[in-house]
């Protein structure tokens, strides 16, 4: 048994399977445990004419496995109050088991079944195909979903794994058969290069089923990362008119750095200052708190193994989007040209550092931290060292990182929503009688 007491720490455990295992301990009082399997099975691996395949495969993991059909599978989880859920991005499928500690052994068996012995029953394949069609239609008609898709297509060139949002065209979805799903699963799930992270209360042994089903035998090599064109997209501006809604969605974005890049911590701080830190970030303050133009204005930095992207987002009324857009671009310019006053940087940095204890409230919360460590092969004491790393970054280092990624005007701009004439809160508001 590995002795770990600080839930900020993750211990890599050697094994012969080719699966990277990371172990995290929660305080003994925690009644729950969690495990996540990170398979190199993201939608970046979708074959060209089968877009949506990876998402379909990931969604079918919990739709029956081993000797249990979907309903029997769900009943075992329900009996323990446990859940198994999958998330997908371009690179990985993260499948997470969460449940009470007393049921860890039987749940770990079920988890292994889901990952390595899914049934892919034809009826379930059809059900998931229907779901994906509905999501595809929603992505075309719902302003924020459409804006996300348009932005990805504006940032990354055709053939790039980050260019898509994981769904497929109607033709692709209709072409996905059980055979393709089974093949994709065998090449992307039970493979070396996958990773497993387990969070257990201190004093608990790793469930035997984890050792037996995940770690005992050597696995075949996993897939190679997809290849993609290295060219970058030119700056672009696109408007998409979608009728029927009330709000216009604005997105700005561009490529960013991979998680392993040395500049990542500085860029992370730049994003927090710009729009990542809730309520105190510049975009929120300027667009919402000072001007009242939008309920939310924020930025996001996504960093993966192969690369990354940044996004600035706001939703506003149809007659205000030009003003809101100007403010968003002004804030981007201010960040890259003027840098960040030391006081503002310190406040943001200390907020990020202070957040670590609140990120350890529950097993699920703490597990998310461990998952990040294992996914990106970060050092075992990454979260213990993170404050020191952030405090070593001065204002200039952050500005340089920001300028490198957000600099110039070479970004993509997407505006989606009811843009036609007659929309918006036209003209001055009725004058309100003040008290």
């Amino acid at each position, binding site marked *: 048994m590995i002795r770990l007491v600080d839930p900020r720490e993750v211990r890599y455990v050697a094994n012969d399977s080719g699966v990277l295992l990371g172990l995290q301990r929660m305080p003994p009082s925690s009644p729950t445990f969690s495990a996540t399997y990170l398979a190199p099975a993201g939608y970046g691996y979708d074959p060209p004419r089968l877009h949506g395949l990876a998402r379909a495969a990931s969604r079918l993991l919990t739709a029956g496995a081993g000797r249990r059909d979907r309903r029997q599978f769900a009943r075992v989880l329900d009996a323990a109050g446990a859940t198994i859920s999958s998330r997908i991005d371009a690179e990985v499928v993260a499948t997470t088991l969460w449940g009470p500690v007393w049921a860890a052994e039987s749940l770990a068996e079920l988890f292994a079944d889901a990952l390595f012995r899914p049934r892919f029953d034809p009826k379930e394949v059809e059900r998931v195909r229907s779901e994906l069609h509905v999501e595809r*239609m*929603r992505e075309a008609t*719902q302003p924020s979903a459409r804006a996300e898709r348009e932005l990805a297509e504006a940032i990354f060139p055709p053939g790039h794994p980050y260019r898509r949002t994981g769904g497929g065209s109607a033709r692709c979805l209709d072409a996905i058969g059980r055979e393709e799903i089974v093949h994709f699963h065998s090449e992307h799930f039970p493979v070396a290069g996958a990773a497993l992270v387990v969070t257990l209360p201190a004093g608990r042994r790793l469930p035997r089923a984890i050792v037996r089903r995940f770690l005992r035998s050597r696995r075949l090599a996993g897939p190679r990362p997809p290849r993609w064109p290295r060219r970058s997209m030119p700056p672009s501006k696109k408007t998409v008119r979608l009728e029927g809604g009330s709000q216009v969605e604005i997105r700005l974005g561009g490529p960013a750095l991979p998680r392993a890049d040395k500049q990542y911590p500085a860029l992370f701080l730049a994003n927090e200052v710009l729009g990542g830190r809730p309520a105190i970030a510049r975009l929120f303050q300027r667009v919402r708190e000072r001007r009242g133009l939008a309920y939310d204005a924020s930025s996001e930095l996504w960093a993966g193994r192969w690369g990354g992207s940044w996004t600035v987002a706001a939703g506003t009324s149809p007659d205000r989007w030009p003003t809101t857009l100007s403010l968003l671009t002004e804030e981007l310019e201010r960040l890259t040209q003027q840098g960040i006053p030391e006081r503002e940087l310190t406040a943001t940095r200390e907020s990020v550092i202070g957040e670590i204890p609140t990120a350890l409230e529950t097993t699920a919360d703490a597990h998310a931290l461990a998952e990040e460590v294992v996914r990106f092969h970060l050092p075992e004491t990454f979260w213990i060292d993170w404050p020191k790393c952030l405090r070593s970054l001065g204002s200039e280092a952050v500005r340089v990182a920001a300028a490198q990624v957000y600099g110039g005007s070479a970004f993509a701009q997407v505006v989606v929503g009811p843009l036609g004439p007659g929309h918006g809160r036209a003209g001055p508001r009725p004058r309100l009688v003040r008290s």
Partner: protein
Amino acid sequence: MPLGTGPRRTTLRLANGLTVILAPLAASPTASVWLWHSVGSRDERPGLTGASHCIEHLLFLGSPHFPKGSIDRAVVGVGGTLNAFTDTDFTAYFATVPSAHVGLPLAIEADRLTGAFLSDREVEREREVILSEREGNENWPEFKAEEELYQLAFRRHPYRWDALGWRTDIETMRPAELREYYRAQYGPRRAALVVAGGFDAAKLRRTVEAQFGSLEGPATPRRTPPAEPAQYGPRRSTLTGPGSTPFVYFGWPAPAVGSPLAPTFVLLDVILGGESRLFAAGAGWRRRADHPSSRLYRALVDTGLAVRATSDWTPKIDPGLFCVRVQAAPGRSLDQIEERVRALANRLATRGPTDGELREARAKIRRGAELAYEGASRVGFRLGLFATLGGPSLERRLFAGCLRTTADEIAAAAREWLSPDRVNIVRYEPTSPGRPR
């Protein structure tokens, strides 16, 4: 802790009427402070709909010791998270901080419980933010359908409008009206303070008494809204707009959370839709979409008619709705779905649940009760929610009732309440389903 009771805590009532619940959690690295106001859209009137939600926003924008912007800066600055939400029956403010900083959110709540400024300038600027929040919701067909459903089902009771309020009311409500609403409705007598996490209870109690004990507020009791007249026939409405596939929402008038029938509706929710908000393991207040063993799933998703089928009995102080929400699979019609839902309700009314279903439903509720209290934030949420909706014994009563309720009682409730004569139905028919790309 015995199931259905929550963690060990101290409950006290200050002389000014404020309910205080302190739940120390050994070794918790965080402390979560919640102030639950028994004020929500239930307390509003036409012309001032959305006032509670507007006050929720304004309470972040200036009070004697916390000028605009300082609350966010202070809490986020120490690594905390904070937010607030408004519902029909309540408004809740919370902050979870590293436990050493527990005094900060307490000071904030004490300052703004009765002292918020609600200046003209902030009201005018925040009005735009709130309109933007509403417009963002209007971009989702589900929001429009939900709003329509409640408008259809309620004719007199304030549950008729969403907590966001009608757009026209948000546009025209005056700062003076909001200040009057705040003075009349908010105060210690109508609030419950819940603190959960790592702290010394005796010390914290003294702090709370010092900070909150001298606050005064309105003495008037909470108004009882007009009762909803009986519904004598089905009501329906159809909305159109952009979207994916058609969907349909059903709403039957349902008992209040304090009714002896409330546990029956918890069970109905679990049997038909797969879970209950009140006893969902580890899920907070959110519901999982898929419950393959539920009746709705088996009748609608398993058969390929729908991609999603859920039920929802949201506990409310006054009689609310029992809802069923179904999204059609591509190419499937809402007529077939309606027919199937009617048949399901009828079957439950005539035959009741099977022994196996009842056993599974109770097991889910047990597990939910067992795992629902992990972490200071969830403890603060649950204790405050139950205290606000029905007092300290509500959870225990509901939980015990769920274990006692029989299959015959569930069938009788389905007969009486899920009747085709009392249903409200909203259909959403997309105008542009299409198969682009």
